């Protein structure tokens, strides 16, 4: 066996010093036995890589959803966030529910004077005290003429968008999955029900973070 035989694989892996590599290359020019050995090693390495790749693709199902840890983590964090936003700082007495419809005319929307007490602009809005879902649903919403006027609509009062990358470690939420949180808030401002609906969708992670 040739003296250089023990250095051929390290040379192929570029693990030799410059001097040693140059010596191996000079030897390879002259030794056909070592050249054929190098070719054989290349074939083995190529087969080994293919074997590993095949083992990986045949054993790992790509995109295999792992719901239990993801859903539990999402549920725990979402519950904490929801409680943070809806927990009342002071005891709040909800107004008595009046099923009558609130009608606001176009002319009344132009000025705050003509508005009923319930739809006047609120100078200091405390979000925890705004939410009265049943009353909002019963309100007829006129076209908005004055953007400053506070007119409740059928749209959700509070929308919070938190990117998954900010809340979870990488890998916790598989790509292509997002969650819709359906939160019901009771009259006293507390969270009554929180339901998370996992959805599969075309989901693109942001490439940059703020």
């Amino acid at each position, binding site marked *: 066996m040739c003296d250089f035989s023990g250095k051929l694989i*390290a040379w192929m*892996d570029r693990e030799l010093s410059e001097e040693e590599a140059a010596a191996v290359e000079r030897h390879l020019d002259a030794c056909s036995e070592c050249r054929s050995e190098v070719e054989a090693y290349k074939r083995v390495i190529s087969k080994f890589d293919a074997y590993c790749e095949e083992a990986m693709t045949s054993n*790992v199902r790509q995109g295999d959803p792992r719901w239990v840890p993801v859903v539990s*983590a999402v549920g725990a964090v979402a519950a904490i966030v929801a409680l943070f936003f809806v927990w009342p700082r002071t005891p709040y007495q909800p107004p008595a529910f009046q099923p009558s419809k609130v009608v606001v005319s176009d002319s009344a929307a132009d000025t705050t004077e003509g508005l009923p007490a319930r739809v006047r602009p609120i100078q200091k809005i405390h979000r925890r005290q705004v939410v009265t879902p049943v009353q909002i649903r019963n309100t007829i919403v006129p076209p908005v003429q004055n953007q400053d006027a506070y007119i409740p609509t059928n749209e959700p009062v509070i929308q919070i968008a938190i990117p998954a990358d900010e809340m979870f*470690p990488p890998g916790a939420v598989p790509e292509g999955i997002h969650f819709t949180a359906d939160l019901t808030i009771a009259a006293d401002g507390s969270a009554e029900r929180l339901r998370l609906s996992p959805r599969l969708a075309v989901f693109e992670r942001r490439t940059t973070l703020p």
Partner: protein
Amino acid sequence: MSGDAANLALPLSRLSTGACEATTLYRELRKPLLRYLVCLGLSSDEAQDVVQDAFLSLHRHLASGGSQENIKGWLFRVAHNQARNRQNRYDRNFSAPGDPEMNSVSHEATPERAVLEKEKFQQLGKAIRLLSASERECLLLRATGLRYREIGEVLGIATSTVSDTVDRAIKKLAEKCNV
């Protein structure tokens, strides 16, 4: 996932920076890491668990201002140790990687060629199983693109030992597979 609470307690700026870097590394290194663990003998679910735990550790490491030198080697070392811990916990030997089913060969080759390729693959699988654990680990880590020095750091052995082990392992495979 027991460390989520600790993660949330990290300063937001560090969390954000760490998350960004860890996400980039996740895209780049998830597949090589999975491949290493599956070829080491872990099941698909076990390998995915280990990968997830390793990246969670990486996220904590980066967010707490840990060293960013040779992150790839660091990640493989964490994953390797976790795989070894599972081996001890379940008293199981990960010495025999699962044989691939060779689905890809049959798509392109003639039936005779496919059978021949399959036989060669099985021969290679047999030869791989006859390697020692350290020979197999060195070859698998080498296949992920790690340098000998990094392989030594992952396995806790000297670089010269890695060089000798890789050399010996490839020669054994070449001899037994008759390529």
